[in-house]
């Protein structure tokens, strides 16, 4: 037992109960209209505030973390993407980071093997994260069918690709696969479950996991589960639901009859996720673009980076110091950089 995940689990169960009871006692307008709008406003305003806060934060110097040879002599090969010295290199590096999670791919695990310490490639975090994020993106995009009329062809196309596999299990105790199976929803649930189990069973990861790590995982698990339940098991009247969701985006609100409580739980979970987003680790969605350890060129030796808000400091250079004290230094027998001019006065004295 661990209070971090227990608290998060209880919080998500609490949210489930709130939404279920709320819609059961007739507060459907609250959970179907008011809360989604409020969540949307909180999300947009929160993301705006956070990102603009980052934009205000000074990054005067180059602090990229690099994983390869910096640009140097022409006969030493530079790692142009791992240690980019040009904006193009940075662009490719960021593209790989954002689309392919390159730095997760470097994940290693330390192990004692035959009494020796060894580092092994640990690829499953990367695989799980890729599966999770792309499944989530696909799920998000195909939900546009509830928010657009007419439905754009690219949404239908993604939906068709997503429901490519047709598995139908039609027995009396169990029906599954009608309507057609979306792979993304199942992959999303599997990946989020993996990411949770990883935190639970890998001891070093469990040690650094907090309630704020578990809560979004449980919340997303709840979203995926309620969605899967509505689609494949308990069934909902999809036309009424689209009536509601279209009402939200066209500002012609309506709460049609006959929408089950589970739908309001699903919608409430999504609203909570949206509202929670800007105040949590989930802001890595925006943060990944603004990581100074990734998005700066590593040209610290090529270009002198001067702190741009340096005020002019009055300096007393060594040259000026020596000019001031040269005679005294020579008198005291201290070495000087510049010997005084051969004194023209001495021969004059001899003449006189």
């Amino acid at each position, binding site marked *: 037992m661990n209070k971090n995940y227990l608290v998060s689990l209880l919080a998500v169960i609490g949210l489930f109960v709130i939404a279920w009871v709320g819609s059961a006692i007739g507060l459907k307008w609250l959970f179907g209209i008011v809360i989604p709008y409020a969540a949307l406003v909180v999300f947009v305003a929160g993301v705006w505030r956070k990102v603009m806060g980052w*934009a205000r934060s000074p990054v005067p110097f180059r602090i990229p973390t690099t994983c390869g040879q910096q640009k140097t002599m022409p006969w030493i090969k530079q790692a142009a993407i791992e240690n980019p010295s040009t904006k193009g290199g940075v662009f490719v590096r960021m593209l790989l980071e954002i689309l392919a999670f390159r730095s997760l791919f470097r994940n290693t695990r330390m192990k004692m093997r035959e009494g020796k310490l060894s580092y092994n490639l640990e690829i499953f975090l990367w695989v799980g994260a890729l599966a999770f994020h792309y499944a989530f993106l696909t799920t998000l995009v195909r939900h546009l069918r509830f928010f*657009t009329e007419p439905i*754009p062809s690219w949404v239908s196309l993604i939906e068709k690709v997503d429901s490519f596999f047709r598995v139908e299990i*039609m027995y009396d105790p169990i029906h599954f696969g009608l309507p057609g199976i979306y792979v993304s929803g199942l992959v999303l649930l599997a990946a989020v479950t993996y990411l949770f189990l990883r935190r639970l069973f890998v001891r070093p990861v469990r040690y650094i996991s907090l309630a704020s790590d578990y809560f979004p995982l449980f919340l997303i698990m709840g979203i995926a589960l309620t969605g899967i339940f509505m689609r494949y098991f308990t069934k909902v009247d999809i036309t009424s639901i*689209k009536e509601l969701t*279209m009402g939200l985006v066209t500002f012609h609100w309506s709460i049609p009859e006959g929408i089950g409580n589970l739908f309001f739980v699903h919608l409430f979970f999504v609203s909570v996720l949206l509202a929670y987003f800007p105040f949590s680790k989930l802001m890595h969605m*925006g943060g990944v673009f603004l990581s100074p350890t990734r998005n700066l060129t590593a040209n610290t030796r090529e270009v002198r980076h001067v702190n741009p808000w340096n005020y002019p400091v009055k300096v007393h250079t060594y040259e000026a110091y020596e000019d001031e004290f040269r005679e005294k230094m020579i008198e005291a027998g201290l070495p000087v950089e510049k010997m005084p001019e051969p004194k023209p006065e001495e021969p004059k004295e001899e003449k006189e």
Partner: protein
Amino acid sequence: MNDKKYILGGLLIFIVLFAFPFWFNLGKAAPAPNPVLSEKAKAAGKCVMPTEFMRAEHMKLLGMWRRSVVRHAKREFINPEGKQYTMSLQNTCLNCHDNKAKFCDKCHDYASVDVYCWDCHIDKSKGEE
């Protein structure tokens, strides 16, 4: 430092993309579809199962019917009220709901549901025209 304008640009692009459903549907009314019941269906007054069940779960019922007919050659369906029907899309369902375009397609198009019934079955209403 002077990256603020790029960050602001990126943020605006994100918000515009995120608000896609709002501006995409701007000024368009999206009335809920209203599938037309034929005279025969109106006369019958009720479907093989209650309307709420049919709205949400007809695909399941049709799947079960298909399995029963194709795998087990059993064509009798007795509903909870005790009334007997023949399991047949062509002869039972489409007997009342005789116009695919005015009935089935209305909601399926609205919710972007791509049914494969018509891969095998004939849309009679179209054939007669």
